[in-house]
C-alpha cells in the first residue's frame, strides 16, 4: 500500500484519505471530504467516468473498467490536489 501526502509552507497537510492517516487528521483542524464520484456512464453502456467536481476537478471519462476510472481519479488527485 502506498500513502502520498504533501505539506505546504503554512503547515497544511493534504492527503488522499487512508485509515492509517486517521490519527494525523484527528490532530488538526481542516476538512475531510469526498473527492469524486466514480459511476457507470449512462451514455455508454459498460463504460465508467470519474467526476472530480467535489474538489474543483474535471470529469475523466471513457474508461472500460471501473478500476481504470479509480486509478485515473487517484492519479489526478496526486498531481493536482496534493
Amino acid at each position, binding site marked *: 500500500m*502506498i*500513502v502520498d501526502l504533501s505539506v505546504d509552507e*503554512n*503547515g497544511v497537510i493534504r492527503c488522499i484519505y487512508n485509515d492509517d492517516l486517521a490519527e*494525523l487528521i484527528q490532530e488538526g483542524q481542516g476538512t475531510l471530504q469526498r*473527492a469524486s464520484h466514480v459511476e457507470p456512464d449512462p451514455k455508454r453502456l459498460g463504460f465508467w467516468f470519474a467526476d472530480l467536481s467535489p474538489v474543483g476537478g474535471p470529469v475523466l471519462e471513457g474508461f472500460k473498467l471501473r478500476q481504470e476510472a479509480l486509478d485515473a481519479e487517484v492519479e489526478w488527485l496526486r498531481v493536482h490536489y496534493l
Partner: protein
Amino acid sequence: MSHVAAVQLEILDLKALKATAERLGFEFVENKKNFKWYGRWLNDWRDNTRAAALQGFDPKTFGQCEHAIRIPGGDVHQYEIGVVKARSGNGYELIYDAFGAYGQKLEAMGGQGMVKFKQPYGIEVAKRLLIKKGYRVSEIVKDGRIRLQAVNVRGSIIAQEVDEAGNVSIETKGFSGSDCIKETMELERALGRKTGDMKTVEFYKVQSKLEVKR
C-alpha cells in the same frame, strides 16, 4: 471514490516539535521553565496579528514556559522561544520576544510568528505516524511543498530463486496470515502457472488465532 483531507496540525507532539526545532537549527531544552526575553513588558507594541499581549497572552506570564527553544552557542543574552500551553487548552504554542537584534535573530531562523516551524512540524508528525504504522517514508521537495511518499513494509518478498529448469520460488517474510498470498499474487500471475506453495509459520500463527476466536 476517494476522500481527501486538508489539515493544519496543532502542536501536540513534543518529540516532533523537538525534531522540528533541530531541523531549523535550534536546540530544544526540555523542562526549561523560563525563556529569555527583554524582561519587562513595556506595552509599546501594537501589532494586532503578532503582539502576544493583544492575542490573549497575559504579560505577567511572559518569560514562563513548559520548555524552551534556543539558538545553540548564541550570545548569553540571546532571546529564546517559549513553548507554552495553548490558549485553547489543547497542546502548545510558541511565544517569543521580537524586539531588537535578539528578536530579529530568532525570526531569521524561525520566521515571523515562528511560521517556519509549521511545515517541518507537519512532516515530522506525519513521518512518525507512518513509520509507526509500518511504512518506509521518503521525502521529496517540490514547488515549496514537501511530499511524503510512504510504502507499507509490514511484509516483504525476501528472496526469489530460479533453478536450472527455470522454476521460480518466492519467499516472503513479515506478512500476517494470508496477506503474503495477496502480495505475491501479481508476481505469480506474471511468472506463469503456480506449481505449489509452502506456508510459513507466520501464516499458521494467524490462522490458529482465528480458530480460537470462533
